[in-house]
Every structure is written in structure tokens, then in C-alpha cells.
């Protein structure tokens, strides 16, 4: 199943946020979206996931989702969006409650999702008892439970410390390794984008337009190797040079806002 951004334009009142953004996320492909602060990255993701109505253009799907997918487009949120009154297990089970599944079927899906994210021993824990990294694991586990075709990740690591980010990045690489699941990964962190994405969509300053689409010229497995570091660093520098001036302008604009 492909996800297509078809000439998406969006305005918040008089403020133009996105201007004619078009690209396609192929089945099993990971596309990162980067750009200066306020360029509309998260807005674009909300539109792609059907949480926000664009002013013009539309998000579209092409092809059938996997047969076992209960929610083909599934978000992983920056702030985790966990129900604080529910245990880890209940949070993971939450999106399955309204699906036409028996309790036994739900249990199998929850077990599998908890196992894949290393949360089996934390099933009865409440979110407030968990570290930020573990909370995001619950968010990922909840997303995996519905067998998504494409994960929509809105800066999923930005609220975490660098060590936890590194560990979760390894988890993402592992989860996306077999190409069975694609992702749109919004980030301001160029290292994360270069590490995870097959292609990187670089947006301009507001209103966000596509400046360039950069293809990462190696597999995700290769990127973990020491020899690849220089190439990845060069790629990050290349993207940074594209957005640096606009990032400076955007930051000044925010400060004067």
C-alpha cells in the first residue's frame, strides 16, 4: 500500500503553512521529513494520517493494505499519548477494543506487541511509573498491535535523552528491517533521518514546500557499520547546507513572534 501526498496545501487562517507538497511513500519504504522549525512537518503528518483536513490537495492511498492490518496508517506520537489511568497492557489493548476480535485474539496481538518491544514484564505498570523511553516503547507497542502498513512518527524521540534515543533508534531499525512496514518519520534531527530513512524529504521554511528529496544510498543494515559513518555524516552535512540559512531565519522569526 502506497501513501501519496497529492498537492497538499494548508493554511491556519492567514498563515500559509504548507504549499503544494507532493510525494509518495511506497510500500515498506521509510521516508523522513525534515526542515526548519515551523515549516509544517507535523502539520503535514497530521494531514497524511487524516487528523487534519488540508486547505487543498489530499492524502491518498494506493493499493490494498495488508490483510491482517487493523489500522493501516498508525501514529507514534511525540508525547506518547498514553492513557495515564490504564496499565501498559490496557494501553496496548486500547485500539483493539472496538475491533471485531475475541478476547483471545486481542490477547495474542497484545502479547506479540509487548514481546516485540520488550515490555512483557511491565504489563501491569502505569505510565507514570515508566521512564520516557519506556513510555515511548508503549506507544510503539500500541502501534504495532494494530499491524500497521505505514507508521506515522511525529518526532518520536525528541522528548528523550540521547542514550534512550540511541536505544529506540536501534529498535526502529530492527522493526523496519524486513520491509513489511513503511514509515513517515518527521524529525528535526538529521542524524535520525539519515540513519532510518530510505528517502529524505527536505521542506523549505514556512510555507513548507519540497526543496529536495534525497535518497540515502545504502541499506539500513549497512548504516550501522563503522565504515558508513563518514558517508552518513556527509549526507547530513549536505541536507544541513540546504536548510541552514532558513533554519536561522526561522529561529529568529520564532524569537520575534
Amino acid at each position, binding site marked *: 500500500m502506497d501513501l501519496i501526498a497529492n498537492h497538499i496545501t494548508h493554511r491556519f487562517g492567514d498563515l500559509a503553512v504548507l504549499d503544494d507538497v507532493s510525494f509518495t511513500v511506497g510500500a515498506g519504504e521509510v521516508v523522513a521529513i525534515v526542515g526548519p522549525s515551523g515549516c509544517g512537518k507535523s502539520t503535514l503528518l497530521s494531514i497524511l*494520517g*487524516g*487528523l487534519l483536513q488540508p486547505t487543498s490537495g489530499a492524502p491518498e492511498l494506493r493499493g490494498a493494505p495488508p490483510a491482517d492490518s487493523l*489500522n493501516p*496508517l*498508525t*501514529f507514534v*506520537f511525540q*508525547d506518547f*499519548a498514553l*492513557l*495515564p*489511568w*490504564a496499565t501498559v497492557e490496557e494501553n496496548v489493548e*486500547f*485500539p483493539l*477494543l*472496538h475491533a471485531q476480535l475475541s478476547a483471545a485474539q486481542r490477547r495474542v496481538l497484545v502479547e506479540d506487541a509487548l514481546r516485540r518491544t520488550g515490555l512483557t514484564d511491565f504489563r501491569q505498570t*502505569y505510565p*507514570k511509573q515508566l521512564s520516557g523511553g519506556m513510555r515511548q516503547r508503549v506507544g510503539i507497542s500500541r502501534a504495532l498491535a*494494530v499491524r500497521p502498513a505505514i507508521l506515522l512518527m511525529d518526532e518520536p524521540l525528541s522528548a528523550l535523552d540521547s542514550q534512550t534515543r540511541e536505544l529506540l533508534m536501534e529498535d526502529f531499525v530492527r522493526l523496519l528491517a524486513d520491509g513489511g512496514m513503511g514509515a513517515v518519520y518527521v524529525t528535526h534531527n538529521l542524524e535520525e533521518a539519515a540513519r532510518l530513512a530510505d528517502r529524505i524529504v527536505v521542506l523549505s521554511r514556512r510555507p513548507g514546500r519540497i526543496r529536495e528529496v534525497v535518497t540515502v544510498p545504502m541499506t539500513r543494515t549497512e548504516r550501522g557499520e563503522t565504515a558508513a559513518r563518514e558517508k552518513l555524516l556527509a549526507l547530513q552535512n549536505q541536507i544541513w547546507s540546504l536548510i541552514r540559512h532558513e533554519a536561522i531565519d526561522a529561529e529568529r522569526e520564532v524569537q520575534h513572534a
Partner: protein
Amino acid sequence: MLDRAPSTDTPVKSEATRRVRFRGAGFVPASSRFGGWIALALVIALWQAAGSVGLVNPLFLPAPSAIVRAIYELAMSGALWQHLSASLLRIGVGWLLGTAAGIAVGFAIGLSRLARSVGITFISALFPIPKIALLPLLILWLGIGEEPKIATIALGVFFSTAISVYSGVDAVPRNLIRMAQSFNVPFATIVRKVIWPGALPAILAGFRITASVALLLVVSAEMIGAQYGIGAFVLQAGNLMQTDQLLAGVVILSVFGLAVGKVINLLETRLLHWR
């Protein structure tokens, strides 16, 4: 190999050192477990002593022992239960009716644009009216029996409940609702599984307020038109200058308020254990 720094780093003593002054004390008030009870016992003891040695005229302020005796006599004569049961029935029915209506209207205001624009206008206009002022009108509409007293309590409870419920619904983090929508969770399930538990802390805080409102209104309503009830009893005792009985009624009201507070604490502990 890494060069390691010495494990201890003693300051060079060439100059006199002085300790950095601690400035972080205070602003963390902690209540002691028994402090309140000890203070209460001390006040009662002083009050009793003042009464016993004749410093205070018992007509103006009866001693605690006289109040306890009055409560005991009331209990033994059966009058206490008669008055208490009448008040409890009015509070119970009025509170339940007002709470049910307040929750329904509060949720409607919290969830529907139409209900919000209409409801908030009406609530803003009617909430500040002292509900007891409506009692004569309610008597005119509903007759002289229990109904106007219950309706007065229900009205008082309704407005506070509706306000706390829609404030609670408004305070539910929008990201949780968007999360549920992103999983195609139906509206009714979002209300039941996200909005209701998210609004519950505000709803329970509202219960604490409405319990006090109900107590206030039952006493006022019973003072205006009732033969039985704690309010009627306090009024009769006052008219007859039986100040020990009057204060017995006040103590009973206070104990009732404390008991309701304890029940709400218990509810909060049970339902909001995740906080």
C-alpha cells in the same frame, strides 16, 4: 589507555574557604498527621474549661459537655433520627437528581458546539442566583411538601456539577482524543474510555463542592418550611434559646460534612489511584 584523574579532589587550602549558604528552605508546607486533631482537642479543652469555671455564660456558648449531652438526649429520644433521616432523604434525592442532570448537561456542553453555545449562556445567567431565593417560587409550583426542598437542592447541585463536568471535559488532553481518533475508535468509546476517566478528577472535585452546597441548601430550605430536618431543629432550638440543642445540630451538620468528605476521599483513592 585513558588517563584517570585522582579519585579525590581536595581543594587547595591556600585561601580561606567559606561554605555556600543554604537558601533552599521553606515553601514546602507539610501537614503533620495528628497536628490538626491535637489543635482541635486543645480548643475544645479550653472551651470546656472556660465553661466549667464560669468564664462564659452557657446561654451564649454552652460547654462541649453540654452539647454532647444534648446530642445524647436527642439520640435517646429518637428525635435525632427523625430530623437526620428527613435531612438525609432530601440531600440524597436532591443531590442525585442534580448530579445526574449536571453530568448529562456538562458532558453535552463539553462535547457539542450547539449545547455549549446555549448551555454556557444559561448557566452563566442562572448560576449566580442564590437558589434558596427560588424556594418560594418552587413551593408555588410544586406544593408545600418535600418536592420544593429537593428541587432547591437539586438546582444548587446541578449548576456546580455541570460547570465542573464541562471544565473537566475541556481539560482532557486533546492529544489523547486525537490518539483515539487515529485508531478509528468510535465516538462512544472515546467518551467512555478517554473523556470520562480524563474528566473524573474534576468531577470528583465538583462532588466535594456540591456536597457542601447540598448541606447548605437543605438547612436553609428546612429553616424556611419544614417540620423535621436538622435545619428545622436548629431553627426551633434558636427560637427557644436552647443554645446547647442549637449547637448539637451544628455539630451534627459538621460531622455529616466530614463524613461526606471522607467518602469522597475514598472514592478518589479508589478511582484515581493512577495519579
